[in-house]
């Protein structure tokens, strides 16, 4: 297992280099380049001063050296300071990270909780009414613009009936609530954002689970299990589902980029104090160090998520780790 993890880890290195190189190139090629990004690119800055600053920041060195320096900064989590208030970018990100993690963990949990039973039963009762109903549902889920759905639900539940909060993570004066009330208040605020952020991925995972189940159910060992007279329910969950679960585990890792990317929209709509909204605020304020820091940090975090999914896959499926060690 350890052998496998190490091997996997090294296979992520080219990916890491690719991603950081891409981000670096975006900065480098941006109009005004890194000078603009650090705040001395404007034509109002004295040219001599600019040359001096270029030297200070190492921008007079060859591109490769610049990239390596930049990598070093990333490795030490040094993303510079925000234009807006001079605070460290990394500090700002860490402040916002828990909110985003909470939201995404809740929605991944919800996605699996709902998608697995639906997918499994759709496969078992293939072409039944139940299956067709959810096929339609999956289609709608793929096509609906989630921000539109969010606005409609906010209008209905937040404004018309006033039973769910439409913005923020906690109520006013949350610090003074009792512990239980704090938790309940948080859950109350989580309902709409979690539902909305889970919606699209719910559709794709349902379809995925169904496809995997159909595949497994058509295999010979299922037929032989049936021949041995094992109850349908047991075959479905013990024999088929366990095998279908493996690829489903990896999809969780692949879902991360879209979930996190979508977070920018959900967090902005619901004024959720997470990194997605931080990104939006940074973009609106043209706060370049914050934009780049945020983008790079989130991307690396996603890569880490994929890595963990890979490992859990190998942990669940011995064929993967032994197959690779041969």
């Amino acid at each position: 297992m350890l052998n496998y993890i190490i091997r996997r880890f090294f296979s992520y290195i080219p990916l890491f280099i690719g991603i950081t190189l891409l981000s670096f190139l975006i900065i480098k090629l941006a109009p005004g380049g890194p000078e603009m990004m650090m705040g001395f690119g404007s034509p109002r800055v004295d040219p001599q001063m600019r040359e001096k600053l270029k030297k200070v920041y190492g921008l007079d060195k060859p591109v490769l050296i610049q990239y390596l320096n930049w990598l070093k900064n990333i490795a030490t989590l040094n993303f510079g300071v925000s234009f807006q208030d001079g605070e460290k970018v990394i500090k700002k990100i860490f402040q916002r990270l828990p909110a985003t993690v909470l939201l995404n963990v809740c929605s991944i949990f919800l996605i699996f909780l709902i998608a697995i039973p639906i997918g499994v039963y759709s496969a078992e009762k293939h072409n039944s009414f139940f299956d067709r109903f959810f096929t339609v549902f999956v289609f709608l889920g793929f096509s609906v613009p989630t921000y539109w759905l969010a606005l409609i639900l906010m209008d209905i539940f937040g404004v018309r009936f006033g039973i769910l909060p439409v913005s923020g993570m906690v109520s006013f004066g949350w610090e003074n609530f009792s512990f239980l009330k704090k938790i309940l208040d948080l859950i109350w605020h989580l309902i709409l954002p979690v539902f909305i952020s889970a919606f699209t991925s719910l559709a794709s995972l349902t379809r995925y689970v169904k496809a995997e189940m159909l595949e497994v159910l058509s295999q010979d060992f299922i037929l032989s299990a049936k021949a041995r007279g094992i109850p349908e329910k047991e075959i479905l969950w013990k024999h088929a589902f366990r095998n279908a679960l493996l690829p489903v585990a990896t999809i969780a890792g692949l879902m991360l980029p879209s979930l996190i990317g979508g977070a920018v929209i959900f967090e902005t709509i619901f004024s959720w104090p997470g990194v997605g909204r931080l990104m939006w605020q940074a973009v609106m304020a043209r706060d370049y160090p914050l934009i780049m820091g945020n983008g790079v940090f989130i991307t690396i975090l996603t890569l880490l998520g994929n890595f963990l999914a890979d490992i859990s896959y190998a942990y669940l499926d011995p064929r993967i780790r032994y197959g690779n060690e041969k």
Partner: protein
Amino acid sequence: MEMRKNYLFWMSVFILGFFVLTSVFAPYICRYSPSQQSLSEKLLPPSEKHIFGTDEFGRDVFTRLLYAGRVSLSVALVAVIISTFLGTLIGITAGFFKGVVDAVIVKIIDVFLSIPTFFLILMVVSLWSPSLLNIMIVIGLTSWPSLARLVRAETLSVSERDFIKAVESLGLSKWRIMFVHILPNVLAPVVVAAVLGFGSAILVESGISFLGLGIQPPQASWGNMLASGKTYLGVAWWLSFFPGLAIFLVVLCFNLIGETLKQKWGGS
């Protein structure tokens, strides 16, 4: 089953055609101009005079919806052309040449697929200006990798087949084999991906416009119309309802058409 599918397919084609035609001929259909303001008529609910109501500047929502369709559909069209071209070219190259070329391209595809695309688009749009052209290009440049992966897989299997071996032994040039003999055989999944890509490009464009980072007002796009409706939540539902419905219907139609084609052609 087959009939039902076809029925949905033609229905989608019809609805899409309707959207395309009304957008193209918007100036001949609308009684108002999309930028014509009338402060005495602001935030009017749908009525006979303004069938989808008016917005906060008294502009006719129906008119703006049609003009926004021009923007949203053309952004998606150009983005899909860019991504289809890149995805096909890169995918065929990887699948045909194999070896080192393939390994490098696969890694590049992996890089793109593991980046939260939306963050990448925001990064680029915020550094360059959010002009119409830039948005088309950015969406196109970020959505090719999944197609490239698909085309690569198809190319790998096609190039194992006997007729490719035959043309190889005839000594045809590599480019000729790739584009005359392999390309037509991988075209089915490319068309399917392009149709489905249309839907997702519209979703992405309206997503960034919704955040205020895409198409800039006063030019209307479905996304930024939706965004302006957010301010009047609970006051004027029609501001965000109709643009959202337009996005939803168009994307749904593209998905239905794409899925039908996929099943018909047995693409992966």
